[in-house]
């Protein structure tokens, strides 16, 4: 499946932890309840220090923002195991985070939920790309392009995690591949599961 994500960038730096992505007081919202899922989007990245990030990711009073791709430095998503973090970003309209590196659980949760593509850059791009820049992420060519300057950066391949996110997350992928039965049937993982399921950690 060819996949190009195009839109405005929102740029952050190193060690953006899950408390900055979705502050702990909003964890009372349960992501599987649709109206609470939507509310989570409104709080995405609202824990960023205001002096360093004067432009809000989500405009006050809204649940979705104008930024399709978040650009980050090292260790994006460190801290807690809360799945609310990729979910809040996904609910806010973020389709991909391109970072120098990711914390393990955030990466895994992004893949399992299918909320967004956690893509690693090969260089430090958070110093070059500016918030608001129109950019294009090509998941097949493994490139990230700034449209105005036509500057192109290389990104790493998502490998086995890609088809899981393409499918919409762990369960959709497992179902599509026949590893678990169709929705609504309580099913044990089949014997094939171990052989087929891709790495998502």
């Amino acid at each position: 499946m060819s996949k190009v994500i195009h839109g405005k960038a929102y740029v952050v730096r190193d060690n953006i932890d899950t408390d900055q992505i979705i502050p702990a007081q909003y964890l009372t919202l349960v992501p599987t309840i649709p109206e609470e899922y939507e509310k989570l989007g409104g709080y995405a990245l609202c824990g960023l220090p205001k002096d360093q990030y004067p432009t809000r990711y989500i405009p006050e009073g809204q649940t979705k923002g104008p930024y399709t791709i978040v650009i980050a430095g090292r260790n994006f998503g460190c801290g807690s195991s809360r799945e609310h973090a990729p979910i809040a970003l996904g609910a806010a309209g973020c389709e991909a985070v391109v970072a120098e590196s990711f914390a393990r659980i955030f990466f895994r949760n992004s893949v399992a939920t299918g909320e967004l593509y956690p893509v690693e850059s090969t260089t430090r791009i958070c110093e070059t790309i500016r918030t608001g820049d129109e950019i294009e992420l090509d998941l097949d060519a493994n490139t990230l392009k700034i449209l105005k300057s036509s500057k192109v950066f290389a990104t790493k391949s998502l490998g086995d995690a890609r088809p899981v996110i393409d499918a919409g997350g762990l369960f959709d992928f497992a179902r599509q591949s026949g590893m678990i039965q169709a929705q609504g049937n309580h099913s044990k993982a089949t014997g094939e599961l171990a052989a087929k399921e891709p790495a998502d950690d």
Partner: protein
Amino acid sequence: MTLTEKIMARAAGKKSVQPGDNVWVNVDILMTHDVCGPGTIGVFKREFGKDAKVWDREKIVIIPDHYIFTVDSKSNRNVDILRDFVKEQGLKYFYDVIDDPNGHWTFDASKGQLKRQYGNSFAGVCHTALPAKGHTRPGEVLLATDSHTCTAGAFGEFATGIGNTDAGFVFGTGKLLLKVPETMRFWFEGSLQKGVMAKDVILHCIGDVGSDGATYRAMQFQGPGAKALQMDDRMTIANMAIEAGGKNGIFEPDDKTFAYVDARIKANGTKAKYDALFCDSNDKQTFVYDKKFDLSKLEPTVACHPNPGNRKLAKELGSVQLDRAYIGSCTGGKTSDFLAFAQVIKGRKVKIDTFGVPATPDVVHDLQTAKMNGKTVWQVLEEAGVQMTENASCAACLGGPNDTFGRLNKPMKCISATNRNFPGRMGHLESQVFLASPYTVAASAITGHITDPREVLG
């Protein structure tokens, strides 16, 4: 193989595994709490059907602990969602806030924050409660929807945090696909000197590798210095593996481990059988990092704002004036943490607002019965001006709803015996948190600035 590799191989039914292998492991215990439990239940029902049954009703442990003592209605509702699910599924291990299985939990703010509002089944902070209630066993695989699940590596098991979707999958299947991590070895020699605690050891190690230095990796704590540590100390250290980005932290089990685990299994009547695994000889283990640490050389250590890898020595930070001190959480709210804290505090007065939140009701009980100079430890702390609550929970360690006990509701500097200090972690976005041992937190509470506890320890 390293200890983590051995446990994962056995749980996957394989003779051996290598770092990078993706293997389906059988899960021994899956734990969730009030913050991620309702979402996990939602995923399970959405994906397996509304009438689906969990894979094993005795292998799921549910411990409400995060947002309990708050008037926030969604928080109270989330505890009720857990109770309904436990009833529906007939789950064996649920440590409810209230004792009535048909009741509803509401926190009564008019009774204040300090006096106990929970029933007899409540267990407090999950990572402290899991071993106390007999759910940690050497050689097993423990997964839970919380990043500090790595605490249980103290008992020689593979323990790591997962998200709701993964946990929902485990609810239905009892399995999860995990990548075998590379292992970093932290070889401990020597013993801790006066004024230095397990918290200083792990803050030192995290400072050494950085707050992402162990990302995707296992941290294996080994050597004579590791063997000399008590179980509580090992828990404090393993708890913070995640603060270096680690997938898990692990200690080799020994007689201390077995005595601790067996006593709690017996007291609680949980599953008694387990098969411990031990470290292979050095030539049979491969590490991506292998470093010796002489524990006798360590000094009281602080992780400064804004991340747990920002290491300094307490003695270098005397100029940092503080507004608040806090002791509690899964890493710093155990009985031994409070006893160390009280050893410094006793007979003195705190100079800044100081909050104490025991991790579990058992810790409350210990502190209200153990004596120090003829008084209970609880009295000693209260007389020094520490605001002690009986309502054991995660409390302000992660901020939480605005009425959470001890939460930093305005910009301030706080020294804390907790485990994480990214911006906004304990509440206000512009507050700053400095992580330190119970000794250092106590010494700093007395002086009002960051203080090396060796200056005040008699």
